[in-house]
């Protein structure tokens, strides 16, 4: 991503005084400012209800802040309408969810191809890339199976393949191992580490300190909608 030796990698995500209120005095986010640079793997941790998912949704363009700005790749998300946000998600964001959120009516392969289909890329190219991804993730032999027939770990790998399909600038993950047994969880972690090592920028929300320390290069700890602590991590794996 960077061209000049020595100059810091470009900023991918920039939050400036982001607040989110859900009516009443409940404040999910209370003035959050942060930057994420290309190639970083940032983990967000904190007690339940402190606003982690809210933050992720804002960055994904699924929700809008009450005040403050969010810029992703120098684009102010506040200036986009619904269709603009859909387009933004399609081209710049990959998302993995705790409960996979695959489309039950589509086979594993079609779930992955779908992402490219939305961008209007050729069916043949999309299929080739989807097969490559499934192969890299070790589930090529599951390509014609429907989500209901896949194990949790397999589903999450299909979801990762879908998220990577359009080569997103930013991969968002909300509790990606939350619904997996420890072995599948470790596999997903390995996957995230590999992705980050080839330059993929990550923003991971998790309750699992092990996931954070294994995968992330920086830890942001939240409390009551604010950033309580930030620290660099020496990866343990």
């Amino acid at each position, binding site marked *: 991503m960077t061209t000049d030796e020595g100059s810091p990698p470009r900023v991918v995500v920039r939050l400036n005084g982001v607040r989110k209120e859900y009516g009443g005095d409940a404040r999910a986010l209370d003035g959050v400012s942060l930057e994420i640079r290309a190639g970083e793997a940032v983990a967000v941790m904190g007690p339940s209800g402190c606003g982690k998912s809210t933050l992720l949704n804002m960055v994904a363009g699924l929700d809008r802040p009450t005040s403050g700005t969010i810029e992703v790749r120098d684009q102010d998300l506040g200036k986009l309408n619904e269709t603009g946000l859909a387009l933004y998600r399609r081209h710049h964001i990959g998302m993995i969810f705790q409960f996979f*959120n695959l489309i039950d009516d589509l086979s594993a392969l079609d779930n992955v191809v779908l992402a490219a289909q939305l961008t209007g890329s050729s069916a043949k190219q999309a299929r080739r890339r989807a097969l490559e991804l499934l192969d890299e993730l070790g589930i090529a032999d599951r390509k014609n199976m429907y989500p209901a027939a896949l194990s949790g770990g397999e589903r999450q790998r299909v979801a990762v393949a879908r998220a990577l399909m359009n080569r997103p600038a930013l991969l968002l993950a909300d509790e990606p191992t939350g619904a997996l047994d420890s072995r599948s969880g470790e596999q997903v972690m390995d996957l995230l580490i590999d992705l980050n090592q080839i330059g993929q920028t990550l923003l991971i929300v998790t309750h699992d300190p092990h996931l954070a320390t294994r995968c992330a290069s920086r830890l942001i700890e939240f409390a009551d909608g604010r950033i309580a602590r930030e620290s660099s991590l020496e990866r343990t794996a």
Partner: protein
Amino acid sequence: MFVALRDIRFARGRFALMGAVVTLITMLVAFLYGLTGGLAADASSAVARLPAASIVFGSPQGTALEVSFSNSSIGPAQLTAWQSAPGIGTVAPLGIAMSRLTSQDTAASVSVLGTGAALLPPLVSGRAPAEGQVAVGAKTARADRITVGSRVTVGAQTLTVSGITADRSYGHAASVWTTEPTWQRVSGATAPSALAVQPGSADTAALDRARNTRTVSRGGALAGIDGYSAEQSSLRMIQGFLFVVSALVVGAFFTVWTVQRGTDIAVLKAVGASSGYLVRDALAQALVLLLGGTLTGAAVGVAGGALLSGGGLPFALSGATVAVPVLAMVALGLAGAGLAVRRITSVDPLTALGASR
């Protein structure tokens, strides 16, 4: 269409069921269309296929005037006035009455039309009737073993068959044709029922005002056939109901379907599908369902109708006429589906997140 077609494949049971419903409704509509067309021809073809642009109804000066063959009559003064109107094309007196035709040992209800040779349907054999003669339709001739030269009784008059014509009917009875004076003897009427007119450049409105007549188009004159309008409008009402029912059924199906796949829609939006894309996809899905269902139904309807009309039922349905109900079913079904899938636009992609599924 990416998701649409795969949805159909995945939920083929549900879509097959819904397609079958559309097929059955289309079949019913096609049958009704054929029956409506068949009954219309049976009730009106003698008038509907007259080679005349307009029909003139009349009643004596100072009496009420209506578009009705049985209540209309054209007096001598009215006839003369029309025939001598400046710019008029042709004016032919036309008598229509119901009667009975007896030949050897068979008898049948017939409609008797009295008019000039110019208005006679095409002859299959023989010649146009002169005074005291009659021309009968081919079907009647076959059924009653009538040939040119046979003697038949129409009403109380015995007439000689001069020719066999193409089949026409009026008031659900096969038509026989004779001259206007002979028609008066058969029917007991003293004046023709109406005039069949090519108006040319004549001022028909002025004639109508001055002579207590009413000029209507040939198509408009069908309303003057007893029971025709009531019969047709009740059949059309049933058709209309079926169209509405099919739109509602398709709408209801897609409403339930859209609600059912609400989480999928949210996920699709979360990964970047726009509402427009999803609505187009859903409408394409509805179109596939509707085209599949209606085309199957129409094909079965046309085939079944061909069998029925072979069995003597008044039924008239062609590929061209069946296109109308098919297009109507598709258009109304799409409208129903369109209303149903509108809710796609209001699905919040946020609901996809954290949802356990």
